[in-house]
């Protein structure tokens, strides 16, 4: 019976980690070009509500996922126009995007509260996906596999390809990249859009896969944790994967504790755990890199104007 518990722990762990991984990977790409978009939480909420609304109205989860990616991307474009084209302060614009995402998703979602849809199902046939222990590998939905493939893809893209090299260069020294003739703003737009699409999918993971329903502020601050994960990863996709799964583990503590029959710990304390862990991890990261800060893109968060 313990093996059954182990399998279920793995399944919850993967489910809790996937939205973090998706959102953080998108943000990592945006930050690699030097853009700090603090609106991840807002974009996730936009994706979550759009995904649910479309899946509910059309009955198609696939269309729901597409809508979620587009909604996240659309939200990110609002950020891009302000922060990139108008050179507004990136911190303030990102915050605005999060506040906007909370408001817009609540407004749009008001009509969907209490409705349910079928959960996003596993990719592989039941023989594999419902196998007592093989389901640890084959029992997941499309977004889980997509997120893992994207980690590999982004990692190769950044390290091995010329567009990846250019993308890193823009984040490293925007003035030089511009002087050489690379379209700094356009590249940043593309990276922000990619980040928005992945944040939208990460948000949709909540409303389509984890709990197939809509509730206000469904993502409960996971967007902010995704931002912290990017710092934890030192802007490397491989470490991001590790970080996302570590945080997924922390986040499932509440469930695990219940499963293990621990009742002396107040549920509120367990609910605090991911946020306290984030603070602790950020602190440890800083302790670990007292000498220099070569890992962060040098232009992160700085506005650029080409004149």
């Amino acid at each position: 019976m313990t093996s059954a518990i182990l399998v279920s722990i793995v399944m919850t762990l993967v489910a809790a980690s996937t939205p973090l991984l998706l959102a953080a990977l998108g943000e990592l790409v945006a930050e690699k070009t030097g853009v700090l978009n603090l609106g991840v939480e807002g974009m996730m909420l936009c994706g979550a509500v759009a995904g649910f609304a479309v899946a509910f109205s059309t009955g198609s989860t696939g269309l729901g996922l597409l809508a979620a990616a587009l909604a996240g991307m659309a939200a990110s474009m609002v950020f891009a126009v302000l922060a990139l084209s108008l050179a507004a302060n990136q911190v303030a614009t990102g915050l605005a995007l999060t506040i906007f995402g909370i408001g817009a998703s609540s407004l749009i979602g008001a009509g969907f509260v209490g409705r349910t849809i079928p959960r996003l199902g596993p990719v592989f046939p039941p023989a594999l996906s419902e196998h007592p222990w093989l389901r640890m590998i084959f029992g997941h939905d499309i977004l889980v596999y997509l997120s893992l493939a994207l980690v590999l893809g982004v990692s190769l893209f950044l390290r091995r390809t010329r567009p990846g090299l250019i993308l890193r260069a823009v984040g490293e020294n925007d003035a030089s990249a511009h002087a050489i003739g690379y379209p700094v703003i356009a590249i940043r737009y593309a990276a922000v859009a990619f980040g928005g699409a992945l944040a939208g999918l990460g948000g949709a993971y909540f409303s389509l896969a984890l709990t197939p329903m809509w509730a206000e502020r469904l993502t409960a601050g996971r967007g902010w944790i995704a931002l912290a994960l990017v710092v934890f990863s030192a802007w490397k996709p491989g470490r991001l994967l590790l970080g996302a799964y570590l945080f997924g583990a922390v986040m499932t503590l509440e469930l695990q504790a219940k499963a293990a029959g621990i009742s002396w710990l107040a549920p509120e304390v367990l609910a605090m755990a991911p946020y306290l862990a984030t603070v602790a991890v950020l602190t440890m990261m800083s302790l670990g890199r007292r000498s220099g800060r070569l890992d962060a893109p040098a232009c992160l968060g700085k506005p650029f104007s080409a004149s």
Partner: protein
Amino acid sequence: MNQPREQEMPPRLALAHISKSFPGVKANEDISLSVRPGEIHALLGENGAGKSTLVKIIYGVQQADEGTIAWNGTPVSIPSPKAARKLGIGMVFQHFSLFDAMTVIENIALGLDEAVDRETLKREVAGVLQSYSLPLDPEREVHTLSVGERQRIEIVRCLLQKPKLLIMDEPTSVLTPQEVERLFATLRQIASEGCAILYISHKLHEIKALCDSATILRAGRVVATCDPKAETTKRMAELMIGAELRKIEHGTQTQAGAARLAVNGLSLPGDPPFGTDLREVSFEARAGEILGIAGVAGNGQAELLTALSGERLAERPEAVRLDGKAVGREDAGARRALGLACVPEERNGHAAVPDFSLADNGILTARHRLPLAPHGLISGGAVRRFADGVIKLFDVRTTGNAATARSLSGGNLQKFIMGREIGQAPAVLVVAQPTWGVDAGAAAAIRQQLVDLAAKGSAVVVISQDLDELLELADRLCVINEGRLSAPRPVASLGIDEIGLMMGGVHGAADGVEAAHA
């Protein structure tokens, strides 16, 4: 002109009546010039004469408001640097377009317009490095390289594209005299292969040594075109500056007095990530003297200045003494109160706050010695009066004390900052690049102020990359190289070759000996 061959062969590049304005300034006005294949053509002018704007137009970074560009006789438009490179124009900027955290080969790859696979690129780079005998390691990260090596990356980047016109923007301002010689040899080789070179500089002896012809700019207009080998340096200087050259009056040579600033064994780690460590720096600046500190950019000048100003603290109080008092552990405010004033190289953002008015910028460093904010309460009247005084005395061209620092030209802001510090009658003034970007008239005025300040009994330390300026101003000169400071020598006893060798680190012959023993 009469030779039929030249008529057959149109100029590589011909500019006709180019004009370009920015808010408040006409950067270029009716500029025409032409460059032949194989010619090294100088574009000569002071800082702010419009050279940089003009080459940016040629390289497609900016667009001219009026005028035409002809390439090999055909009119062209150059909307982007990419288009320029496509024509065969390569450019080495004064400020390199490099990525510190990436390797040399990655930087070169980024400079190419087409994707080249890594192995091919490596081979091509090795070929260029060999045929021009340029020493450079393609796998090193850029932040570990010297300025001369960084420049070589840019040159290799251009040469890989087989350019037909190479633009060099103030290429020697950051090089040692020996590196300059090496660069000139490279450029002559490139020109001999038929490439035209447009060489931008304000250094007359270089242009005489290197260039076949020169176009002289002043205030955005062409004032003359000449053969620099035939023209005298003095005549070119007058054309460039537009006035008779003025000489600094040193007054009666006073005997140097007691040490006002004494630095003893000052060591500090460099600023992360790419700073230079200061190693056992010791020197004295005496009352009545100007001490010059020469050196190639990035050898610890910035670190030395912040260590003296108190922005970074020394490990021991005795490492820095001001009039005998140990101040190594005192912060910037305390040192200023005691009479130590500093002017860092970077004006906007370091010496001044770009978004503050001139009046508010006065408060930044003058509040310790002047009653601008008694008991922490800012006295608006006193602040404005102080700023007005500086503006008047130092002839700062501005709309008034409410103008933001950002709105001033580099030279005018420098005049304001120098005035702000000199106006406090400091015991010691440490100044980096006192006349960088300032027009010749104002530069002469600033140098005169420094001489006068020393004459009144203050000690003045000038940190500069401009050897001519140091030789003109300083009584004694030392050189900073890789964070080490050489012993000061009286300027009268030094030859320029000797200083060049010191700048290149050869003076540290001890290093070589140690290495040999190891």
